[in-house]
């Protein structure tokens, strides 16, 4: 009876040990994974910052103005181009006169097509 009990205890101890080891191994693996992920996050943060800076540099108004002047047939909006809704009816003729023929309508679309 005692022998059996001892045997059970020994086996339990071994199994517990093995389980503990397995668990620790797994934990270490997870810890490593966390560290790797954290570094990846830091790297990605850094990339985002760099891209943000690049985006900001590429969209600086000075550059956009130059590109727009080169490639678009648009000009800064003038005060008299603003029409409030309630006077839209009376200004329709004026607006039609401003809008150029269909050919020149989709300037940006044409430009994109050319680039492709």
């Amino acid at each position, binding site marked *: 009876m005692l022998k059996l009990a001892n045997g059970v205890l020994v086996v339990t101890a071994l199994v517990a040990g093995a389980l503990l080891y397995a668990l620790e191994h797994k934990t270490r693996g997870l810890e490593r994974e966390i560290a790797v992920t954290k570094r990846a996050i830091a790297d990605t943060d850094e990339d985002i910052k760099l891209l943000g800076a690049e985006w900001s540099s590429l969209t600086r108004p000075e550059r956009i103005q130059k590109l727009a002047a080169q490639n678009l047939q648009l000009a800064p909006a003038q*005060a008299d181009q603003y029409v409030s809704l309630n006077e839209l009816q009376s200004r329709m003729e004026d607006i039609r006169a401003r809008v150029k023929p269909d050919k020149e309508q989709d300037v940006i679309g044409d430009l994109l097509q050319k680039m492709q």
Partner: protein
Amino acid sequence: MTSATVSHSESAAASPVLAGQNRIRLLGLIFSVVFFAIATKLAITSAIAPVSEPPGEVVAAAGRIPRPDIVDRNGNVLATDVAVASLYADPRKILDIDEAVELITAALPDIDAKMLDTRLRQPGRAFIWLKRQVSPEERDTVFNLGIPGVAYVNERRRVYPQGRLAAQTLGYVDVDNRGIAGIERYLDDAGAIYTASLLEPGKDKAAPAELALDIRVQHALTDELQMAMTKFKAIAAGGIVMNVETGEIVALTSLPDYNPNAEEKKIGRDQQNRMLSGVYELGSVIKAVTFSMAFDYGVVTMESKFDARTPLVIGSARINDFHAQRRVLALPEVFTYSSNIGTAKMALEVGVERHKAFLERVGLLDKLTTEVPETARPLLPKRWGRLVSATAAFGHGFAVQPLQGLNVVAGLLNGGKMLQPTFLKRSKEEADVLARQIVREETSAHMRELFRLNATDGSAAKADVIGYRVGGKTGTAEKVVNGRYSSLKSLATFIGAFPMEKPKYALIVMLDEPQATPETFGFATSGWNAVPTAGKIIARIAPILGIDPVFTAADREKLAKQAKEKKQG
């Protein structure tokens, strides 16, 4: 143990066996109690107690406070940190210094071989910088040379993606990322509490510092000023756009400027921020202050008349008008013709003491401070008498930073609410708490009327962009050369606001020593250079700032006429 107990029971008497068994039982009991205690504790900690982070987050105090990014009011990045490598060497670990010097200088041609050699041979040195902030390629090349004792650390480098845009406002940092000037300096010095408030708790990150600046407006302002500077061959130009209701500085330009990303920034006296660190005589613009003063003390009304037929004589000095009309002028005419005689008479009626008290009230006797540390104290006459009071009334001997001039005028136009201007984002509610009443609402209404009149019929007509109800005052101050006013060198200023019935934005445009061109018919006064420049700026920024144009029937006629002229021309 079991076998031992058995052998005991065979050989020994009954009582000792019993005693031995008791002892074993006791031991067993103790063991089970202890194990039970451990098991219970284990069960409690692992199963019952909730899984929690260690109490009190570990403070990330290891490094310095990270430098926050700077963004404009719409979140566009103005300044940010990027990672760069810096190469260093530990001379003690380098085996062959000659070879190392040869290899390093071959990889980094801009390093002086001789200098490097002497630095590496300094006895007892354990650390020298080879080159700070290198490109990734340079880093790899040098590191792959495989010289023992040569390595790199990752550092942060401040970059300004928008380049020259708003360079003087932002300031810059040194190689160790410490703020040296502008907002960058503010983040380290006076605004350290603000900087700390941006920090995300427990994280090595900070929220960006949000400025009141709008890069679109900033660019429009800079672009137009640059063109005006070239056109009128001015030696310098500057401008500010300010939100009248909140005191936010939406754009500020001072030309010539510099590239903050360059290693050698070449910042001399010329590249300083004139709008804050320079003081200038704003000339007739100061008349606006005198008019408000006279209104507020109740000395004059809109119906008052002033005799401008003869020059005003005080002691041995004679005050004359630039655009002399030689007749009795009504008060609005004194403003639109910018009559020195009329304005001086107004100041004399107010009296010297009250004149000084009023200047004190609008803050013109004190230094105006903002987040940007480079600011100048106003330059005022030391002794005040009748003559000084009379000449100061139209801006002589009275030099202030352009921002301060603009701020005072903004305060006079917005209903008399003076605000401390700010480069940081500020809401209307915050501004209302900070506002200080300097003149009565009624005085402010009179001033708005006069400013608008000056733009429709007076010297600021070229800034009246049809639809945006601009109001403004011009000033052309002769510059002091060798202690005397020079009639050749002048400073042209325009201060205005729009839309005039309830001003939202105020702006100042300044041209230093503009030259007459054929287009201006030989004139170099403000109305011919600073004013049209301001008009162009307003036409560009008003739509960006969301000001709705309103047209009267007269405006429509004018527009139609302009369109016709354009077609014919």
